[in-house]
């Protein structure tokens, strides 16, 4: 068996006295499609903040690609291959779509030694793939909701990640747009990127995931094959009990 791409080992995150993530462990195999679910406020975003480095975990360890990254700042984790999108999109508003992606290429894919022309053609390729080709030179502040979501994913992809974490990239989208984004994530996974998908839209989670983990109040309450997790009475209770 190949070694895990990500190993989260008993990670806890407290805000003051409040425990948002409570002793969570998980292990991802390379190329896996992993669904992370749980009711609002259950700690999903906080957990991936601890993985991506946007927050430091209070306890526990995060091992990525065989290296302990727990104490690394976010930018170093990104350079090692952890990329993410944000639940509420965070574009670089004063920049065009092209420039947003160039930030990732300049800084995250820094070791790849591309010249300016290669950079632009790489960005163009990513944007075409994401269906954003026509928006290359548009200011990111002028994008629609679905375009913003796609640009966030495109920017993450531009950093050449091994692991991509998508935080509710489909929230607020129409059902055809949801399918579009879902197809994108599946295509990226086919290119060899391991993906964690946080999502409330259950049919998307079911279609996407090889494996699902459900959190409630910071804890893991179920993990396994999508069907089994959905059938789990605790999961059903957590969702219905909200």
């Amino acid at each position, binding site marked *: 068996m190949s070694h895990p791409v990500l190993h989260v080992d008993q990670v806890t995150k407290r805000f003051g006295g409040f425990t948002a993530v409570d002793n969570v462990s998980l292990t991802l195999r390379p190329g896996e499609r992993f669904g992370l679910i749980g009711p609002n406020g259950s700690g999903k975003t906080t957990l991936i903040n601890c993985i991506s480095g946007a927050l430091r975990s209070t306890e526990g360890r995060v091992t990525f690609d065989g290296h302990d990254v727990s104490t690394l*700042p976010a930018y170093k984790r990104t350079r090692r291959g952890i990329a993410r999108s944000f639940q509420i999109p*965070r*574009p*670089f508003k004063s920049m*065009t779509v092209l420039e947003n992606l160039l930030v990732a290429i300049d*800084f995250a894919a820094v070791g790849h030694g591309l010249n300016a022309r290669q950079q632009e053609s790489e960005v163009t390729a990513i944007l075409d793939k994401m269906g954003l080709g026509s928006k290359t030179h548009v200011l990111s502040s002028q994008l629609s909701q679905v375009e913003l979501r796609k640009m966030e994913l495109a920017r993450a992809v531009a*950093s050449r990640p091994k692991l991509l974490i998508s935080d509710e990239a489909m929230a607020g989208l129409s059902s055809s747009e949801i399918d579009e984004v879902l197809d994108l994530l599946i295509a990226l996974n086919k290119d060899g990127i391991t993906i964690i998908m946080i999502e409330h839209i259950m049919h998307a989670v079911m279609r996407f995931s090889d494996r699902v983990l459900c959190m409630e109040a910071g804890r893991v309450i179920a993990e396994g094959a999508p069907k089994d997790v959905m059938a789990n009475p605790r999961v059903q209770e957590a969702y219905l009990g909200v």
Partner: protein
Amino acid sequence: MRGNGFWLAAAAFISAAYGLTVFATNDYVFFAGYIILQFMVLATAWNILGGYAGYVNFGTNAFFGLGVYTAVFMAKAFGAPLLLQILVAGLVGAVLGFAVGLLTLRMHGIFFSIATIAMSIIIETFIINWKFVGGASGVQLLRPPPTAPFDSYIRMLFVIAAVMVVLAVAVARYVQNSWIGRGLRAVRDDEIAAECTGVPTLQLKLLACSISGFFLCAMGAPAAMYLQYADPASAFNLNYSVSALAMSLIGGTAHWIGPLLGALLLASTQQLLTVTISSEVNVLVLGLMLVLFVVGAPDGLIGLYRRFFKPKSSDPSGGSSAP
């Protein structure tokens, strides 16, 4: 091509400044011109942090004043020549800038700005209580004879200020067009997203603060010999902070040309008003113009230029990709 154009313009600028010192008969033009050049440097340097990175530094006066007193100290303690005073002041400013950069770890927006005001009060208080450099009452300075080829000290200062303008603008331009500038813009737009996109935000902010601090402080050094006098109240005058900020905003912060134009416009207006009406009216004019621009042209002169002289569709990327 464009790079050569810049350096040609820079060479022409310095030559013109030098030519003026050879041919002009009246010294007044150098007293007034020096101040305009000084504000060009201050606004350009301020903009590297305030404009590119979006951290509004209200402590320009702390850097400037510290530069003045570094020069006073170097002159009194070691009889150091002017160029050495300027260089040492620059280094002191870079160190202070680095310290200010560390503040950005925990403080953003208005909190950062307030911290820079507090910093300037602390530094001024320190100088007020330092007897060796004259304390609160200030210190008189004697100009040494000017260095050849100059035969007048003020003319020499004028050319030095012109060279400093070129250096500051060259550095600002380099920062803006390099990966540093792109990273700083990412920081300004969204620091968390920048960090998660691989931008070493802290390092870039420290770099921007140090570069900015270098020039703000270096420009303070020749002010001591310009006035032949230094006292804390004028060296640490809040006017420097307000002016550097206002000039950058009025010119436009997205491009290095903005602060340059803003300083040219405002400082010359002020010089004119000082002669024709009074120096008190300066602050009023500064305030009025700032309000006018914030309301009517939030992107400054650069924004106005783009709105009126550029077809909208041809350059949707705005100023970002400009040289």
